[in-house]
């Protein structure tokens, strides 16, 4: 069981890293969600996995005895879930607000706080308005550009 869990965790972590490295902030958010769930599973697995043994104290007994499933990791995870839910909800709103103000979810084109160096090859100057679908084909490696603009449609639904 632990081995299976370890592999699952590995895949989740790898997937989240892949998503986190994306330019598209929506993907980054998905990466964060995946990563925080992976973290919860880490605690769960680290706390020891026992099958079919509830963390209940038998009538008359004063504590848990023998082999039992440890309730503490579950309490930790519960706290962590609540907290990360709050953080991720805030992050989602932040990205959406950023999209409204900056007109993009591409982190490379958000260069207001840190203006690009003149020598740096940053794609096209920042235009603070909602993006039209423009010809982006001259930009190398940016074929997926329209995907980044998806929220314009989803926001109406």
């Amino acid at each position, binding site marked *: 069981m632990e081995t299976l869990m370890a592999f699952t965790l590995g895949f989740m972590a790898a997937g989240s890293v892949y998503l986190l490295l994306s330019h598209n902030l929506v993907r980054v958010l998905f990466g964060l969600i995946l990563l925080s769930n992976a973290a919860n599973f880490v605690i769960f697995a680290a706390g020891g996995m026992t099958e079919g043994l509830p963390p209940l104290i038998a009538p008359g007994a004063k504590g848990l005895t023998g082999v039992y499933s440890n309730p503490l990791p579950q309490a930790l995870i519960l706290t962590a879930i609540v907290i990360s839910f709050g953080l991720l909800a805030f992050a989602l709103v932040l990205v959406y607000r*950023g999209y409204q103000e900056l007109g993009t979810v591409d982190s490379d084109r958000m260069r207001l*706080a840190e203006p690009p160096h003149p020598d740096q090859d940053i794609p096209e100057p920042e235009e603070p308005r909602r993006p039209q679908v423009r010809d982006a084909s001259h930009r190398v490696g940016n074929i997926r550009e329209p995907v980044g603009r998806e929220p314009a449609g989803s926001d109406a639904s």
Partner: protein
Amino acid sequence: MSWYLIAPILVPMTTAVLAILLWNHRPAQRAVSAAGAALHLVTAILLMAQVWQGGILAGQMGGWPAPFGITLVADHLSAVMVLITGIMGLGVGLYSLSDINEDRERNGFHPLYHVLLTGVTGAFITGDLFNLYVWFEVMLIASFALLALGAEKEQLDGAIKYAVINVVATVMFLIAVGILYGLTGTLNMADLAVRLPQVEQQGLVTTVAILFMITFGIKSAVFPLFFWLPASYHTPAVAVSAIFAGLLTKVGVYALVRTFTLIFTGDVAYTHTALLVVAGLTMVTGVLGAAAQNEIRRILSFHIISQIGYMVMGLALYTPLGLIGAVFYLVHHIIVKTNLFLVAGVAKRLTGSMELKKIGGLYKASPLLAVLFLIPALSLAGIPPLSGFWAKLVLIRASLEIGSYAIAATAILVGLLTMFSMTKIWGEAFWKPHPGGDIRVLGISDLTAKERVLLIGPIVVFAAMTVAIGLWTQPFLDLATRASAELLAPAPYIEAVLGPSGAQHAGAQP
């Protein structure tokens, strides 16, 4: 249960709640905010006095004995950090009354500010790793909101980067905590200190130590994990970036100091050498980054990074003198850095910008502000007799003592470069005439009386503190010495938390 321990957390929490209840009554909200900050300082002073007289103070929440319940514990380091949080909280709180505009106040600046103080204070006092995680989150969510408050384009851009990297850091923290729990079956820091040496898989312990190092490294912006800081700290309102500059990264440093003196001391040769390398690179990259900038707050942001290097260096040396230096540096730097951001705010108020190319003539307009800038600036660069000189001196002596000449040379060189970029601000903003030609730069006398008290008052007090630490160094060194002694010999800390029989205590099995 000692009230001295709970009060510094409870007061800002209550203030935040009151401020939320008074959401639509701005004057009342402002009064509550200022009073709450003052009361927070009072509780912090009481805690400091208590710890100074009676030694380490520990309390168990809900009366659960130590390894099971949540422990609050204050040794000299915690107490002094809480005290400095109280001082900064009040100073910046007063400054914010004049600096934060009505719009931001309406959107909840005051409650958020006190939630931030709650989180910071809680992180300093807690004695439990999972609880530390929770306080980090309290602090983090407040800082996200404060950073984005006002929702200017720059702010949103900075806030997104800040938020994403910090969430990643917290998740890593959680993973590390989980693995540590799996290894030892406890998350109480004192209990961990007892049990970790008994763990068979010491390799895994070192791995977890590195995870913690990365986590707290992101929080405290060390090389190479610092890039989020200069991307975000210069975007929000001045009062917000001042309190961030003073406190937020220092919580990361505090956590590093705490964990790497109390818990992860099994493989000092490896972990602390890694920290030393990181410290040197942090100093150099920070100061070089600062040299390339042309906006006051961005220069100052990069300086935070290079100064963090000094504190980590003190920890990495892991000698009594090194830790004295680290503690001394922490306190000195919080005061100086907050003050510099506050001065930058006033400079913006008087000249209308923070871009060095667009401003000038401040010295002619208000020599007083020039002096108030010079005191923290020279202290940051390490000019005697200001506080920064003693902090650097102690650290450099500590590194010479154990023959780490490379890091000593780096520290001195970085001090010189700091001086260089401070003279850059001085020359551009204060000395050269205003590029607008005949534009008259406002002086302090042009501010209203209320603004003078609220904006200049905290700056004067902080500057006086910098000078005082520089001239009467001995009491502060004594305090740092006590803190460092406790950090290097954690037995009293463990005993205070776990009780006399603590070392033999057998807790729950994982």
